[in-house]
């Protein structure tokens, strides 16, 4: 009985991390598609967001196959910081933060919107979505599966 319970919990933990990995992989390939195939040059803030999502694609992969569940200890901080950058970028995009405050080079403005999917979905929105789903799943993971 209790053996079964442990097994189910393990299964759930694995699925949660697996979904996180899928999101990180989608973000990785999606961002590479936009920069390398579509030729959209990433601005400084885009780079900071990349810095925190790319390692997640590797860490979740390793985490799926580690017997312990400490994966959350080193992935959650990355995801939270990345989410911070994504929110900041979105505020810049939507004009909440004035342009004088933006930390970007002259040649590539972070406030300039260069892609809108279906008319309203911007790149920072996709970034916020990916990061917040990852953070949410990790919090669920911590509550249910992390001892």
């Amino acid at each position, binding site marked *: 009985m209790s053996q079964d319970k442990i097994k189910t919990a393990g299964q759930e933990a694995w699925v949660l991390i*697996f979904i996180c*990995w*899928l999101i990180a*992989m989608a973000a990785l*390939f999606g961002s590479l*598609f936009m920069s390398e*195939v*579509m030729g959209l040059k990433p601005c400084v803030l885009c780079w900071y967001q990349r810095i925190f999502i790319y390692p997640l694609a590797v860490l979740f*992969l390793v985490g799926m196959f580690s017997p312990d569940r400490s994966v959350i200890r080193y992935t959650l901080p990355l995801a939270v910081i990345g989410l911070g950058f994504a929110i900041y970028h979105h505020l810049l995009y939507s004009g909440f933060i004035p342009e004088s405050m933006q930390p970007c080079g002259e040649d590539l403005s972070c406030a300039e919107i260069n892609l809108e999917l279906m008319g309203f979905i911007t790149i920072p929105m996709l970034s916020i979505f990916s990061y917040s789903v990852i953070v949410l799943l990790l919090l669920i993971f911590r509550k249910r599966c992390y001892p």
Partner: protein
Amino acid sequence: MKKNTIVIASGILFVVLFSVAATVYNSQKNSDINNAFLEKAEYLERDYSPRKGLPDAKVTIVEFFDPACGTCSAFHPFVKQLMKENRGKVNLVLRYLPLHNGSDVIVSILEASRLQNRFWQTLERAYDRRDTWIVNHTALPDRLWMQLEGLGLDLERLKVDMQSVEISRRIQQDLADAQELEVRKTPGFFVNGKPLINFGDKQLRQLVESEVRAQE
């Protein structure tokens, strides 16, 4: 075991999706680009542009070049080879895009040599001896000058001719056309108005051969 399969399959799926999407996107983009350039055909050639080949050849290669550009020089024999292989079918039109420092003066020398019917010889000589007159990516016309012996050029006349207003007007026109056609690097090739999108000798050969086939 089953988890391994799922993870590996997902990983492969990502890579496959990426490649397929990239291929579809690129082919779509290429056809868009080709259509866009069809409307810009007027910028491709000017009456004054140096031209090589038979006038009734059906395929025309337009090359934007900089005499001080190493890749242009390295590509020149290859372009000649392509013309030789498709003898009578392929024309070459040269356009100036002097991007290096001092390169515009070299272009003036080339243009002035045309008045003495020595354009292609002078260009070959400039390419052959580029080591002597290009220092730190800067073209030094005085040094090229010393390499022009033996081409049958009247150098005194050349010196006068190269100051002409018409020549600088042509250079300005070519630069403006290059901007219009979005050529920012040399050599920039167009074959029958279609830009060479992915740069390379194989790609150029493919483009030329497909145009030659299309005209047969």
